[in-house]
């Protein structure tokens, strides 16, 4: 029996209004992304990759069409329920790391667990384990401005995975890193994905990252032009 897809988009259109001009970012895309896979959305700049990730991440709403994530039709949820849904199921890794500057590495990683109202003891245990897993156990008291770019992104990965979400969305996660650091971050995410059986969806045009993909969705001018699958590496 075929596995239920983690993400399902059905004729999704997204139109932005810029003043009087309407910009069509997605032109009726339909696709299914399987669970527990290392998936990539690739395409040139302005093709609609980020818009697609935003819709899948439930931080934007389509102009038309249906977005279903983890079996949930997102349009059926009101604003607070969508927030709750994100807090439970979805994490993000941003190109610019987006760590909270006034919190230490430990507190940044702990933050998503606070949103799920986890008990303090378990929260601490999971946070320390995750920092250990990303190799930052010794930097837990440092604030983001005291960390290197690679360390910041490791904290961001730890923050994304600490709540054990079903889906991690990463928008160009290696774009602000040098190739060596980028490679180590990709390796880290790949390892964590395998350990935690979490689904990753990246938007990228980094060939180094694309080489790790299990599913590749190529979009151009807001349309899906190709979908290819690979089994393992």
């Amino acid at each position, binding site marked *: 029996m075929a596995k239920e897809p983690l993400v399902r988009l059905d004729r999704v259109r997204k139109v932005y209004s810029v003043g009087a001009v309407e910009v069509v970012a997605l032109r009726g895309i339909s696709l299914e992304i399987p669970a527990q896979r290392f998936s990539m959305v690739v395409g040139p700049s302005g093709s609609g990759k980020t818009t697609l990730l935003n819709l899948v991440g439930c*931080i934007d709403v389509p102009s038309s069409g249906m977005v279903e994530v983890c079996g949930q039709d997102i349009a059926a949820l009101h604003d607070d329920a969508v927030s*709750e849904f*994100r807090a*439970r199921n979805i994490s993000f890794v941003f190109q610019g790391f*987006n760590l*909270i*500057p006034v*919190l230490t590495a430990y507190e940044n990683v702990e933050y998503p667990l606070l*949103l799920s109202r986890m008990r303090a003891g378990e929260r601490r245990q999971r946070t320390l384990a995750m920092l250990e897993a990303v190799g930052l156990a010794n930097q837990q008291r440092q604030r983001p401005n005291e960390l290197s770019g690679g360390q910041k992104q490791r904290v961001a990965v730890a923050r994304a995975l600490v709540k054990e979400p079903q889906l991690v969305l990463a928008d160009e996660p290696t774009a602000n890193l040098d190739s060596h650091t980028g490679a180590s971050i990709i390796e880290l995410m790949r390892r964590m994905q395998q350990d935690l059986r979490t689904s990753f969806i990246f938007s990228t045009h980094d060939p180094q990252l694309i080489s790790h993909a299990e599913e590749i969705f190529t979009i151009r001018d807001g349309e899906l032009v190709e979908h290819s699958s690979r089994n393992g590496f």
Partner: protein
Amino acid sequence: MLFTLAFRNILRNRRRSAMTRMAIAVGTIALLVFGAFQGYLFDSFHTNVVQRSGHLTVYRTGYFLFGEGNPSAYGIERYKKVLALIGDDPVLRPLIYVLTPTLSLMGIAGNFSGENDAAKTFIADAVIPSDRDRMRRWNAFGAGRVYPPDTNLDDNDPMRGFVGLGLARILGLCRSLAIANCPPPPAIHREAPGVASEDFSNLRAEVAAAVTPNAAGKPRLDLLAATETGAPNVVSFFVNDAEPQPIRELDDNYVVMHLTLGQQLIYGRGEPRVTGIVLQLRRSSDIGPARNRLQALFDQHGLELEVRDFAELNPFYTQTLNFFRSIFLFIAAIMGVIVLFTVVNTMTMTIMERTNEIGTTRAMGVRRGGIRRQFLVEGCMLGVIGASIGLVIAFLVAIGVNQAGLTWVPPANISAIPLRLSLLAQPALIVGTWVGLILVATLAALIPANRAARLQIVDALRHV
């Protein structure tokens, strides 16, 4: 985490946060210092008024509204029985500090000593000197001046009293009373005496010869007033001294004399009466119960008497209090607006700078309400820190002022009293100001907090 985040965020831009906290602190200091001064002013003014007119005065019904025109007609008959009724009442007795009769009267005072023939209308209070001295020692709030016994009046010398400085000047008593800074009257050209004038000049000489100072060498005035029956009556009054009065009209007309002399002038050999019975209570908070009890007593005994409190007798008291209260409200409004705009400005800048962060936390699952709460807590925390700093500084200012030994002359006073800031005595002011400014700071954060909560996540994440 909410409070940790809020605290660290308000320290993020140290200078801006410091300016905001300073604005809140300055608002707190201004309100507390002025409020403390106002509190002391109210207490000292209250003390001053109560020392002069007691808390409650019993009048014959109608006197308060109509009696000024003919005080003698509104005298309280058998007032000693009324005094005993009040003084012996088990409810009132423990409340009363001083219970004393007074007589208000008016007439014409004349100085025909030959030095300066002059006459002037006067208004007078006739009192029992020792009771008056006791009343002037009332200082329940510790905020007034406690007067020593007044040597211008004496229980054993009914002829002795004092007048307003203006009245002394008008009647030409400056030289005989040896008053400093009191100009003598200018020389007045008189016509050359004719036959008729000669007769009057002889009369003047006879009167002058009859006018003698008392044993202490104090000048004498002749006081003329209409008795209860309308007939004129005259008594001699020795002016021991002149005391400046706070209001010009009072200064030019005021006479204070012994009750016995006042009664002789108004009632002659008839039954002596008084126009008022003054009750000075131990505590001002007992005014209500004492007044109710008095009225009940009078109703019970069928006495046609009414009770008025000191605020009714001294409209200036209530007006002054209201005046200062409106100044306080004005200052509070200005400070509130300053704090409001400062916090709105600070929070707006903060939100602009942290737009990306708002987008990130929203993406992580923080609800709109969570974002709103975050900024409200930051506004509240700015208020708490600023108001607390202001509170500490206000206390230091109060201690400094109280130890500096400053003095000032309050309204309706003629002598300086110590200037103090009664901050500790006003817990409601402290709590009200502290909580009020924190509320203003929190409410000021609401507008930008709502704006932050309404941000679209993708727009916020795109913000650079």
